[in-house]
């Protein structure tokens, strides 16, 4: 299977007295979709934010493409090729699709914005992801549907020759058809050789697109298994109890913080 592109070993993170992540190991493989599941407060978003450089890790090792790295901010993460698509999307309503996709990384010509080139690249990226739902790349984001916005946010993340894309609940607010589009898109990202992390509460979505399923339970990584080797109910047990048969933690009591 895919090469590990991003590896976390023994990551700890506390917010004041609250110990959110306990010795978390996590691996993202190129060309695979790794689902990150867990109950509310299990530490999924914190883990993503640590990877993205928004939170600093208290301890732990990060290896990117085999070599150890220290990420000190979103820009450094982006420079490595790690992109995050947040739950609330973080798009600017009053800017159009091209402006949003290039926000913070505008292309310049002679010191001025090179609109034609940015438009060309935006269109190319959307085409490479087989996005056909967006009529014009000059549409304001405020005029897009939820699924289209999600598409733009994901396209923004892959525009930069990124190697790892983390998606925080991309289908949470979407209808059936739109969820369909976004899941197809997630699958396509992996097919293009990217390491994809999908955070989701929806087990149907997870089993549909994920190659591996990593389960967080109260800040601990209790299982990281190929999706084929676990069943729906096993994953649910891992999420809610931290163990399922001989999978997961040996003694659930140890997890009570």
């Amino acid at each position, binding site marked *: 299977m895919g090469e590990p592109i991003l590896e976390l070993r023994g990551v700890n993170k506390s917010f004041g007295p609250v110990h959110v992540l306990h010795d978390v190991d996590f691996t993202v493989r*190129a*060309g695979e979709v790794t689902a990150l599941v867990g109950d509310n407060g299990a530490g999924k978003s914190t883990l993503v934010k640590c990877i993205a450089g928004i939170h600093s890790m208290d301890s732990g090792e990060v290896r990117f493409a085999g070599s150890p790295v220290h990420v000190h901010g*979103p*820009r450094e993460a*982006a420079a490595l090729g790690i992109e*995050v698509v*947040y739950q*609330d*999307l*973080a*798009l*600017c*309503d*009053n*800017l159009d699709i091209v*402006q949003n996709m290039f*926000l*913070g*990384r*505008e292309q*310049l010509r002679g*010191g*001025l*914005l090179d*609109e*034609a080139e940015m*438009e*060309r690249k935006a*269109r*190319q990226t959307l*085409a*490479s992801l*087989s996005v056909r739902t967006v009529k*014009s*790349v*000059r549409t304001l984001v*405020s*005029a897009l*549907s939820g699924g289209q916005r999600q598409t733009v946010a994901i396209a923004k993340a892959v525009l930069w020759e990124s190697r790892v894309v983390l998606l925080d609940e991309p289908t949470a607010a979407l209808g059936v058809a739109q969820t369909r589009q976004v899941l197809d898109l997630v699958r*396509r990202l992996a*097919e*293009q*050789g990217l390491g994809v992390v999908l955070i989701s509460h929806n087990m149907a979505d997870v089993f549909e697109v994920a190659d591996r399923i990593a389960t967080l339970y109260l800040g601990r990584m209790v299982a990281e298994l190929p999706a084929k080797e676990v069943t729906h109910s096993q994953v649910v047990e891992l999420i809610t109890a931290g163990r399922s048969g001989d999978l997961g933690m040996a003694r659930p009591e140890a997890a009570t913080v």
Partner: protein
Amino acid sequence: MSTSTVEAPATRPERTGFGRRLVSANTFWIGLVLVGLYLGFSVLAPSAFPTLFNFQTLLIEASVLLVLSVGMTFVIITSGIDLSVGSVLVFAGVVGAKAMEALSPGHDATSAGWGVIAVGLVAALTGGAVWGLANGLLIARAKIPPLIVTLGSFGAALGVAELVTAGVDVRTVPQALRRTLGYGTSFVVVPNLVLVAVVVTVLGGWLLHTTRFGRYTYAVGSNAEAARRSGIGVTRHLVLVYLITGLLAGLGGFMSLAYYGTTTISGHSTDNLNVIAAVVLGGTSLFGGVGSMLGSVIGVFIPAVLTKGFVILGVQPFWQPVAVSAVLVAAVWFDQRRRRTQDRR
């Protein structure tokens, strides 16, 4: 790595339909209002209104407000507000005038030379920039709402200006400055004051519409959190925007000094509201993220044309604020309606 790259379609820049976009823009309609007003007054007073002299004075009287509104456009697009511009203008004028007096024999700067005038300009610009920087730091760093911060500096800047002058206007302004910047003209008919305002406005429009700085201004006003996550230094950007506005208020103070030949301490108490009204009239949204420099220019001239027209027609000038306020409220109402239909999709 399996590549499923789809052939990119023929990529030529999109034609968004310039005409359609023009008509849908607020700027277009508000521009029509301005042209309509101008034509209306020209028809009603054909011998007095559409004259070169009238046109020149119209432009001169609007030029200081125009300079202020360039900065205000940036501020309002970031969804901020700056109530202090008028007071900062007065403060900068006082600082500039006092600096020029201090360098002249007998504290009379009337016959001062260009060296002294240059020092006065730098003093005025610095005076404006200091208040702008203070506003920016308090808003972006200390996260105090812009309305409160600039309400504070609105009072404080004027108070300090009055302390410095003991409430008496400085009246010795270099003749050389008054003759050139004050009421001189270039290219036969273009008043120098207007020339400065035009240069500032063009630079402002260039900065807003074609550079990264401008794009970030829209982004910050549209969704500050998204801008931050995209790697934009939102705090730094906001500080810069308020700094520019203060700097332009300083320039406005110097221009006003050159034109009136006095610091006009008590004459700028409603500048802030006039400038905000002009910018909002021009289609810049108080909610942030939307606006244009051209719109602000039009917004400055609508009240100016109304005032001039009322004076020439012999209508009581007190009707002008009534008329402007009505147009302003109507403009904001249209803006909100437009937003609501947009949200509904």
